[in-house]
């Protein structure tokens, strides 16, 4: 609860931020034309995060503001990451234990008896070995 005047951001700051945002948009569209494999998504998200940081800090004044507001918005990002991250701990590890088992038995037994379907969620019907 400070009584100082509210910060008025200089026009030049706004224009610099604006042109950086446009430039970054150009970069992300340009870079999308090349295939870097898994790095595509990382690069796109890095650029997007950088752009959003610029918006947050300057357009939304967080750079000059009470830091508690910054803490709140950062917390929201952390919880978003928790939500997506931990859900994927399940969805991406659905058949790990079955796979472990598959490797163990592979050495002892004919392979076709122990195939375990790994993608469960597509609606194509999965052939599986135990059917008669």
């Amino acid at each position, binding site marked *: 609860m400070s009584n100082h005047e509210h910060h008025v951001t200089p026009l030049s700051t706004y224009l610099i931020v604006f042109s950086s945002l446009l430039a970054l948009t150009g970069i992300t569209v340009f870079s999308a034309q090349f295939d870097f494999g898994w790095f595509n998504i990382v690069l796109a998200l890095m650029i997007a995060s950088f752009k959003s940081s610029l918006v947050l800090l300057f357009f939304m004044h967080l750079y000059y503001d009470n830091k508690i507001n910054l803490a709140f918005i950062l917390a929201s990002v952390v919880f978003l990451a928790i939500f997506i991250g931990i859900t994927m701990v399940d969805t991406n590890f659905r058949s790990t*234990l*079955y796979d*472990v*088992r598959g490797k*163990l*038995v592979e050495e*002892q*037994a004919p392979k076709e008896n122990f195939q375990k*379907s790994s993608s*469960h*969620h597509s*609606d194509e019907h*999965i052939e*599986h070995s*135990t*059917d*008669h």
Partner: protein
Amino acid sequence: MFLNATEQTAWLPQQASTIASEVDALFYFIYYWTLFFLGLVTFCTFYFGWKYKNNGKKGLTSSVDHSTLLEVTWTAIPFVLVMIVFFWGAGSYIKMNVIPYGAMEVNVTAQKWSWNFKYKEGFSNPRELVVPVNTPIKLVMESQDVLHSFYVPEFRVKMDIIPNRYMMTWFEATKTGEFDIMCTEYCGSSHSEMLGKVIVKSQSDYNEWLEKANVIDESIPLVEVGRTAYKRYACNTCHSIDGTSGTGPSLKGIWGTMAEHESTAALLVDENYIRESILNPQKDIVKGYPYGNMPTFKGLIRGREIEGLIEYIKEIK
């Protein structure tokens, strides 16, 4: 309440599988130390309540508001206990989920509201899972419609069955006898009637059963075959025989009548009508009943059982 009792105790059902004693030991380990803590909390509450009861005297109270030693102790001891419990529990959980090599496989189909067990020998057995004792059994389970869950309390086995994938679990029965199979994931109006039985037989009895199970006994009268099939395929969970309307229409007195339909004109209830209703139930729905409830029994039910059901329905008047 002994750790190695295999009979039913006050808290737990009898132990009838290899994993049961391990789970029970952990259950009782937690039981006793939580009971100790509950006793401690109760004792402290009442002892302090009695000892420091307000006697009406004026005056300030003590300013004690922390004690590092005490706080560390009562954090550390529960911490150690829960970590023991975690690793113990995780160990037996992994055992429950890693299916032993060479286990006998049975395919399980769950649907509203019945169980069906398909054997490798090429036949299926609704409602009853017959297995040999002392043999690891691997269940490959699938659901035809919504979530179900396969639960046998005496085996301490439970696994949710999720549509569009195969869910697996296993058990090894250590006792012969009959045990309940229950569905523990809510699946609609007759959820509580989606029961089944595991029948554990000795190896020789099992072999004998297996030989007979595959052969149709022509000597049983058709009506009896139908009466049995009515129960086996859980027809009773939706279609009553006393005229009360359930999820589906009652079977009482329908033979030879004209059944009203939304989609077509009224149809005569005859042999072909009943056959179609069993094998292709979604083709025409009787007026007043929702679409989509009845699963098909194509591939599950045998020809003689359909004939039996027809005879049986003729009988219900």
